[in-house]
């Protein structure tokens, strides 16, 4: 039985005395993960310490130093021979329950998103002059301004994507915020291991972070942390986010990323014999990525009529591509809950149209030629393909579901793209990606339309009029 302790504490914090043991099953190797459990008073003391000591240390670093430290950490972890990276490659497939090659591929891609030149993208995306993070810089409006994140950012992570904590962790560090993060039980190992690697290059930065855990059912722990934190970033279900809000101080800023339902739009431009196989393969990749469990994973596909290949034929091509994709990445067999959900979904779809998929349930494609509608699936690589006369009629039928919308994978020509993008944005879509590229999150990605850095910082400005006035109060000898 392999046992790993998750999380991270600053060097000068008292040791964790209580651990919650979580057995991880089904990964092929018996694994027990121990989550660091601190009582509310210790959490509060830790948060207070980070807010003063941790943030203080970060404020003594320059932006370049922080960029270099994160880059060095990422480069270290991109070396497959590094012991921490080896650990990740070995055990993240077990914690996530996803195919090992897919997890490693995703890990590499995520890490690359935080290399030096990509970090500059994050900065350029949000700040007209990233130098404002170091000192006062001229503002376009006149006068001078500097920006800084709050002394302490609290993070609440969720889901089973290993790379997810990196987005808010790195954003916090770039804006000089110390951080206290709550691990996701779905994947509790990556975050602590990343900070362990960071400590090799920048111990002071690693010591401005704490990665812990507390039971979601106990509001007193969350309340203790949020009492000391300035802002909170939270991921999770509606219920989880509501729980976070309830434990926060009134008016305390929250940046929330809830669960989402992805979809795909396939235009007639793609539906010719030359392009269709590639399109189907790309879409299969999007669907199969992480077992369709990511916020951007397409759960339904709208296919335009009028191409040389009809929507039903496209559905068949998609089935073949999914078959290949789910063979290539060896997913573990469905548990009883997932198998039951797939059976239920397949049965419903069979009554509405027709469904194809293997007996083991590892993928399913339904097609029905009735009225197209918003049709979430049961996941496990299941999609309903629906025919539409034109893609331009899709935004209207998405409108009632805007709370769930985020990413649309789309295949259309350039002449239609901008108008469709405008219509989709009006119903709440915040990202359009090429088929096959939903998982290729770009540095600076505005998740749910938000800003990685800007949503964390405040500007301190020196009025232009003060600049004029201060000159008049110069040294008497002038």
């Amino acid at each position, binding site marked *: 039985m392999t046992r790993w302790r998750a999380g991270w504490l600053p060097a000068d914090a008292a040791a964790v005395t209580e651990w919650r043991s979580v057995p991880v099953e089904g990964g092929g190797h018996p694994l027990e993960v121990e989550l660091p459990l601190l009582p509310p008073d210790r959490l509060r003391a830790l948060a207070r310490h980070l807010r003063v000591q941790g943030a203080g240390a970060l404020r003594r670093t320059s932006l370049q130093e922080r960029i270099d430290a994160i880059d060095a950490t990422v480069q270290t972890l991109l070396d497959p021979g590094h012991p921490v990276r080896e650990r990740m490659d070995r055990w993240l497939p077990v914690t996530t329950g996803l195919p090992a090659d897919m997890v490693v591929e995703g890990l590499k891609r995520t890490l690359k998103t935080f290399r030096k030149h990509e970090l500059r993208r994050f900065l350029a995306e949000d700040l007209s002059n990233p130098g404002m993070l170091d000192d006062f810089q001229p503002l376009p409006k006149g006068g001078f301004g500097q920006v800084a994140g709050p002394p302490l950012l609290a993070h609440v992570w969720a889901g089973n994507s290993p790379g997810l904590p990196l987005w808010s962790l790195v954003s916090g560090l770039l804006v000089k915020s110390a951080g206290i993060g709550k691990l996701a039980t779905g994947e509790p190992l990556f975050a602590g291991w990343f900070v362990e690697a960071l400590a090799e290059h920048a111990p002071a930065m690693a010591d401005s972070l704490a990665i812990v855990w507390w039971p979601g059912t106990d509001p007193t722990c969350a309340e203790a942390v949020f009492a000391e934190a300035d802002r909170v970033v939270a991921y999770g279900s509606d219920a989880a986010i509501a729980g976070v809000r309830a434990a926060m101080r009134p008016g305390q800023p929250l940046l929330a990323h809830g669960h989402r339902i992805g979809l795909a739009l396939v235009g007639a431009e793609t539906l010719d014999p030359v392009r269709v196989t590639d399109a189907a393969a790309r879409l299969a990749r999007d669907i199969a990525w992480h077992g369709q469990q990511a916020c951007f994973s397409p759960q339904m596909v709208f296919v335009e009529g009028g191409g040389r290949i009809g929507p039903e034929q496209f559905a068949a091509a998609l089935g073949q591509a999914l078959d290949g994709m789910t063979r290539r990445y060896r997913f573990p067999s469905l548990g009883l809950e997932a198998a039951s959900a797939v059976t239920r979904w397949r049965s419903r779809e069979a*009554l509405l149209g*027709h469904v194809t998929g293997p007996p083991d349930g590892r993928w399913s494609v339904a097609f029905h030629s009735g009225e197209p509608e918003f049709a979430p699936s*049961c996941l496990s690589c299941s999609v309903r393909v629906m025919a539409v006369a034109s893609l331009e009629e899709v935004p209207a039928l998405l409108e009632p579901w805007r709370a769930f919308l985020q990413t649309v994978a789309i295949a259309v020509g350039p002449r239609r793209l901008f108008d469709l993008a405008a219509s989709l944005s009006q119903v709440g879509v915040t990202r359009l990606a090429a088929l096959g590229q939903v998982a290729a999150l770009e540095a600076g990605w505005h998740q749910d339309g938000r800003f990685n850095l800007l949503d964390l910082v405040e500007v301190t400005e020196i009025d232009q009029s003060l600049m004029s006035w201060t000159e008049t109060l110069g040294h008497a000898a002038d």
Partner: protein
Amino acid sequence: MGADTLVERLVGFIACPDPDPELFDVLALDVFQYQARHNAPFARLLRARGRTVRTVRHWTDIPPVPIDAFKSHLLTCAPVEQAEAVFMTSGTTRGAQRGRNVHPTLRVYNASMRTGFRAAFMAGVERLRMAILFPPPSLLPNSSLAHYLELARASFGTPDSLHVVDTRGLNVQALLRWLEDAEAGGEPCALLGATFSFVHVMDALQQSGRRFRLPAGSRLFDTGGFKGQSRELDPDSFYNGLSETFAVPRECCINMYGLTELSSQFYDRGNATSPALKRGPHWVRTRVVDPLTGHPVASGERGVLAHWDLAQFNSVCAVLTEDAGIASEDGFILLGRVSGAQAQGCSLALDQFLAAVGGNAP
């Protein structure tokens, strides 16, 4: 075969004290063929599964229909307008689709209920003094449980049996009077109701510091689970609680497992230990299956319960539940619900989506 003939044969088979197992096989195919012919959505599902009347040679070839199909489609051979009863599953919020099980006649359902209940609960006694902890059918006309319990009262209850739940809920005073009379009377009696109702009763009695010693031979009957209507207890705590509150030994506390989407029920032989083995009657076959294939799982493995219930002649006789279980030689162990896999990632799966929109899905 017409519906009337089928009904007669089924009622006869149910009543048979020493049934020939081969007759089950014959009747199963008759029911199946009747349904394949007259139940349009079922016929579609058969086609989707590549099964036809010709290729289904044995009841094990009849593909079990997921109970979810009762919500999305009207599964019936006879017109619903002429039904004697339509039992509906409990809806979650307004607009939520409720499953409907249509009974053109209740003769078969009632025969199944009476035969099963008499054997499992009455312990050779003709009639027991009963209190029913559930509303009568007049208040819940589409509830199969309300009908079931009223049928129990009418068929096996003494004339002074009564319901103690009315429009205002549990009538605690009436129940207390009944319990006092029962205790004083010295004759065996029975309390029947929903599991969550028993929790309410136990809580109410504990608050007023009261307990009762029901006469020897008294029995308790619970069904349906907590369903979010009361706090949840583990089986041992629940049955210990019943035993302490009413002085009825755990082996005389019978639990019934039933579904609106079925026409027969399953019983244990008391809950001295939990979970207790459940058994069905001779007109039902139960298998623990892989839901995707419908094939039985390996012995001792956890799977989903599927039932082939011949009493269910009008909708579909083979039903795939959303309950997990383990097969045993004489029956099965019920493990609890299997539906609603928690999404592990950040995408919202269909089950959670439906819960979020309160059933107002397209």
